[in-house]
């Protein structure tokens, strides 16, 4: 079954989305916007709401972009785990995937808050493991420089191991709560983590009972060599950034081929490329939405956004001249940025042509058309082994999400690509992932 999630920013996925007449009137620190999106998505049976996150305010050195508030910059947003604790009380089936960084957070705190969220949501929590790609975040955590990519990923793997060991602290049946005998818990059904590694020393146990889905689902988003390897090693969901089907197929095969050496079957990891969906009741309605949004972006803002995306200042480059070549893999450079540069080089695009291509989807892949056209593309990728599903980006919220649920989901269900209702109560069940075995019961 095709897995479907959506990125839950209330600003929408398009740089001009929040200005469109069909967007939320205001979004900053509005819980109700988040509740409304989660409930619309749940009505459409989407598997998860996904929240990217960071620990720094971005683009303060790019005043035009800073003032326009691009959707991935998040100058004022809810902390995702506390937000999901609230959303869990307004929903009952949709998965809640929040981002936390292994570079600046301790594994004990990560293990604890996601285990807690899994209980609060009845088994719907997911942790999107990131190593943080934004350099400024380092300066909020006592460091002047961002940690290098290699070190970040070594640390991430160790953190992941520790988090999972902590999640295995207690047996499912450890908390007896037997009022007659006075035995609240069984002391033989807990074990210490006793980890001593390069970056962390953690004794354990975790002070949260084993969670409803055994362990929260671990997502990742890194597309670098180290990121792919870590996803093969321990990821269960992977946010992809491929900008073409062929690229997605290559990456899909590459990552899945790496899994057997870690003793993992390929279907233990769901690869979900980002997909921006411009859907209308007719093709013309979708085209109109697309044009309306493009018209909301001035060229200077577009160039500023593109500069940020490729981590390369394009403000002096002629709009109709060729895109400058890649400056190589930077410490903070992103997979999306590299993907955009590759696309521009491959197709010989100008700066203007590049941003016109990039803006609608913010660098990822996009599809535009009526429900049948959108479903055709999604089916083609899915059956062509380019993905296991999609992480949907909605240009204008809540309109785009509602349109997707009302127009595209029924079409996917007709084709048997999506189930008519949620398959289970936990995120794992809905994603088709197995429940990790309780080591105490093994």
């Amino acid at each position: 079954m095709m897995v479907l999630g959506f990125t839950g920013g209330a600003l929408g996925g398009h740089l001009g989305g929040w200005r469109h007449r069909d967007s939320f009137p205001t979004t900053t620190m509005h819980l109700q916007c988040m509740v409304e999106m989660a409930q619309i998505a749940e009505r459409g049976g989407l598997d998860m709401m996904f929240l990217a996150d960071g620990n720094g305010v971005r683009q303060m050195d790019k005043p035009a972009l800073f003032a326009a508030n691009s959707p991935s910059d998040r100058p004022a947003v809810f902390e995702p785990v506390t937000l999901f604790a609230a959303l869990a009380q307004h929903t009952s089936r949709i998965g809640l995937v929040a981002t936390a960084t292994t570079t600046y957070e301790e594994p004990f705190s990560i293990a604890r808050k996601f285990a807690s969220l899994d209980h609060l949501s009845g088994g719907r929590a997911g942790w999107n493991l990131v190593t943080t790609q934004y350099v400024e975040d380092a300066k909020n955590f006592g460091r002047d420089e961002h940690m290098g990519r290699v070190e970040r990923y070594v640390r991430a793997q160790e953190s992941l191991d520790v988090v999972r060991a902590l999640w295995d602290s207690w047996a499912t049946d450890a908390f007896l709560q037997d009022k007659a005998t006075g035995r609240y818990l069984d002391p033989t059904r807990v074990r210490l983590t006793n980890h001593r590694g390069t970056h962390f020393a953690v004794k354990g146990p975790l002070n949260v009972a084993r969670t409803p889905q055994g362990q929260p689902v671990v997502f990742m988003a890194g597309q670098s060599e180290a990121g792919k390897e870590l996803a093969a090693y321990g990821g269960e969901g992977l946010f992809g950034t491929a900008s073409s089907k062929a690229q997605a197929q290559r990456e899909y095969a590459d990552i899945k081929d790496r899994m057997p050496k870690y003793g993992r079957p390929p279907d233990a990891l769901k690869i979900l490329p980002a997909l921006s969906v411009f859907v209308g009741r007719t093709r013309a309605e979708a085209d109109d939405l697309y044009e309306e949004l493009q018209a909301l972006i001035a060229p200077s803002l577009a160039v500023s956004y593109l500069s940020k995306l490729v981590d390369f200042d394009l403000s002096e480059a002629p709009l109709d001249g060729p895109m400058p070549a890649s400056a190589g893999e930077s410490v903070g450079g992103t997979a999306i940025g590299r993907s955009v540069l590759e696309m521009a080089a491959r197709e010989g695009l100008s700066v203007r042509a590049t941003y016109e291509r990039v803006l609608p989807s913010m660098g990822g892949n996009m599809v535009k058309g009526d429900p049948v056209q959108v479903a055709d593309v999604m089916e083609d990728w899915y059956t062509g082994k380019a993905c296991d599903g999609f992480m949907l980006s909605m240009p204008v919220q809540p309109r785009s999400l509602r349109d997707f649920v009302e127009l595209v989901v029924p079409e996917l269900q007709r084709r048997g690509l999506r189930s008519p209702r949620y398959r289970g109560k936990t995120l794992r069940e809905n994603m088709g992932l197995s429940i990790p075995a309780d080591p105490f019961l093994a």
Partner: protein
Amino acid sequence: MTPLAGIPHPVGGPLGGWRREDVFVRPAMNLEAFIGMSRIAERGKFDGVFLADDNGARDMDRPALFTALSGRDGDEECRPRRHRDQPLRRTRDGRPPDRLKSLPDVSLFTGRSATEADDLYLERQSLISPAPGVHYLSKMLVHDLETLPPDGPLSSDLAVEREDWWQSRAGDRFTIMTPVQPTGLGDFVDLVVPGLQRRGIIRKEYETAPLRGHPGLPDAPSRWPAAAHKAGRGAA
């Protein structure tokens, strides 16, 4: 006005509370229990609910206590105890005295009559078997009592010190701890709160939504002049 805070932990206050029949059947990781407790506290117009916390399992080296109590433990060190050095604090930081609210914790055994309260107290005592009880007392007194017979006397210097510790507590509000949850908190709200309301000691209705407003704390000052707010659309 004497505001109140409650500790909505479903395992209940003192050791053994969770074993009563009217306590949540399985309090561990029970969100509904927390919601229920918080609603009762709100019915009693409490200022807030308070959760102690820590990041390690306590008492794994004391198996009897570890088995009997678990999650509820550890609060002893985390309760709002600042009232003890409050006079000192007030002079040290130079703030007006009413900017810092002290909330001494008080364990309440409430009944419709004194006899009912006594029964509750005795019943709860009977639910504590000697081994965890002695461990717990050892922890509270920071003194190893495990070598003493359970029915023998405590040394007098310890008793005097505890007496003084309790008597030094003074505050303008309380953190309510109830022995069995949720009935203890419910009894307090249903039996005690109306009387306190009649006497004008606690509020009958909330006056503000933000937590700051309940105990009468002023808004945190903004670093931005009012004009700056008018320029933008602002948050909700």
